[in-house]
């Protein structure tokens, strides 16, 4: 990007209702608003500065494993109470994206999904079995696996049911965590699945792989062998430390870009087969019932999608003026090419700045400057990936599949900004 030209001043409106030019994120340009350098937006003087207590006494000691500041206790996962108190651990907890920034989700805030609770697995006793249509069935201990060459990649995981609350006729008063919180992104490290399959010797008749967890539900899914030989990883580490129990300790499958549940946690078994097993979760659950009487089956990649995390419900705007619109974009089919934002409910869009690095099958942070005039506004974001696929409008999305699908909702989402500064989930 070149330097800002004089005929494109900061505050240049590039789309309706106050969307400003993204150049302020791309250039070394200080915020010098219409009021001029040195003038406060509120017109008020700051309070006199006192030296606080913590600057006048020693601080705390070292800790074995650090925790966030106790002032940040509200930054936490949330979950709905179980339908049956006798079966806890059935369901999911959600990432508080409205309170986070960047693209890596802290491991303790990664969304959780389990079908029969989180198992407490002894890594010494855990085994991975590779069998079926292979020349030689093999068993690996974690010690065995830890000796293989490792690779790392940053990848998002999104539950197929994320944003499912938008598969309704009427918009519900929910926040970004409740609607879109089954989404997280980590730096995963492990062994290429292809290495292990090569060692077992893939029979040419093998077309699918059944992956199974060691949890009480024996969560299992079939996936194409092409994915196994492409970019699948058997993960030991998440964000630099061993995978957390809720995310599959001591071993999880990573199928970058594929719907969350296929990335089988607590991985204990991979069986090469000639056809899908038709497990409970690939027939009765993660299938998309259309308007007509058919359901799409084996919908693997998460298609291009974006959400605005700030402003969003619960983050009330403090009067008219400058705001940064910030959010996340991702595609299970590749890299984000562009994100556009709108403040007038999709009548006009302007491109947002993409925060580097922009990685394939990973979350990308976008930012756009916005001058709120205090009037009605509807904020939207629309992502395009490098396959050319554009995130659909809600009308396009509903026209294709109706509202019975439950899974893979990826239409453009809307927050309406009320005159009191509150944000509200709406359909626009």
């Amino acid at each position, binding site marked *: 990007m070149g330097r800002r030209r004089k005929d494109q001043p900061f505050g240049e409106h590039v789309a309706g209702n106050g969307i400003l030019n993204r150049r302020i994120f791309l250039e070394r340009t200080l915020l010098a608003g219409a009021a001029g350098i040195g003038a406060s937006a509120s017109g008020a003087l700051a309070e006199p500065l006192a030296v606080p207590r913590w600057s006048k006494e020693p601080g705390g000691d070292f800790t074995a494993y650090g925790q966030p500041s106790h002032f940040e206790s509200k930054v936490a996962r949330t979950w709905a109470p179980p339908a049956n108190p006798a079966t806890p651990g059935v369901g999911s907890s959600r990432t508080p994206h409205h309170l986070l920034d960047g693209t890596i989700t802290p491991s303790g805030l990664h969304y959780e999904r389990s079908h029969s609770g989180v198992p407490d697995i002894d890594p010494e006793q855990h085994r991975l079995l590779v069998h079926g249509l292979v020349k030689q069935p093999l068993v690996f201990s974690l010690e065995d696996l830890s*000796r293989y060459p490792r690779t790392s990649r940053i990848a998002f995981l999104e539950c197929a049911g994320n944003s499912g609350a938008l598969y309704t006729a009427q918009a519900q008063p929910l926040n970004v965590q409740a609607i879109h919180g089954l989404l997280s992104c980590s730096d995963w490290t492990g062994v290429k699945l292809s290495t292990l399959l090569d060692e077992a010797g893939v029979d040419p008749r093998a077309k699918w792989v059944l992956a199974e967890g060691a949890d009480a539900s024996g969560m299992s899914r079939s996936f194409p062998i092409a994915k196994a030989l492409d970019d699948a990883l058997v993960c030991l580490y998440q964000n630099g430390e061993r995978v957390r129990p809720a995310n599959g300790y001591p071993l999880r499958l990573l199928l970058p870009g594929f719907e969350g549940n296929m990335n089988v946690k607590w991985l204990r078994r991979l069986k090469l087969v000639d056809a899908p097993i038709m497990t409970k979760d690939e027939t009765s659950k993660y299938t998309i*019932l259309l308007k007509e009487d058919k*359901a799409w089956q084996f919908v693997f990649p998460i298609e291009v999608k974006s959400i605005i995390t700030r402003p969003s419900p619960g983050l009330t705007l403090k009067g008219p003026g400058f705001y940064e619109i910030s959010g996340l974009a991702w595609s299970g089919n590749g890299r984000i090419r562009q994100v556009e934002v709108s403040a007038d409910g999709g009548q006009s869009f302007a491109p947002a700045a993409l925060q580097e690095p922009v990685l394939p099958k990973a979350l990308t942070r976008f930012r756009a400057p916005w001058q709120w005039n205090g009037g009605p506004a509807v904020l939207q974001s629309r992502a395009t990936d490098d396959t050319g696929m554009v995130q659909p409008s809600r009308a396009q999305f509903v026209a294709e599949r109706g509202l019975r699908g439950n899974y893979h909702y990826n239409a453009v989402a809307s927050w309406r900004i009320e005159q009191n500064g509150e944000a509200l989930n709406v359909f626009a």
Partner: protein
Amino acid sequence: MCLLERFALCAATIMLVPAAPAMAADDAPHFGKPVTAQDLAAWDISIGPDGAGLPPGKGTVAQGEAVFSAKCQACHGEKGEGRPNDRLVGGAGTIAPDKAPVKTVGSYWPYATTLFDYVRRAMPWDRPKSLTDDEVYAVAAYILTLNGVIGADEVLDAQSLPKVKMPNRDGFAAFPRWPPK
């Protein structure tokens, strides 16, 4: 299996498979340990839609009703009508266009083999993998009978279960954008 038998099996396997670790000729790590079909059998619990993997044994509807009352009903309701957990029975016709779908084993599941697979691996919730294979056949028969899929006098086993035609067997379509262009 006695030690001698185990040795004989391993030896046979190695002779059949020249790529086994002891004989690896390439520079790949080869840290996986060979395992015999017999020794991995306890983990090989997935059941294909053609019935591949179904164990010996059988169960009747009456036996299944007794298992269901004792071990399933508290979560899945009387006669599988649901609450507090998933509904297993009913919903026939609700998959049709513009209806509010009630997805149950009877209205939505395409394969009866899936029922055996899931019940055996995951149910009952508090004691998964505790049912005998006969009990799993029996409780599958009971749930299918409640859904009107099989008659009350039918017996399920490895031969009959894969032949059960589920009402929504043809209710699924391939995702049109896969594989990607």
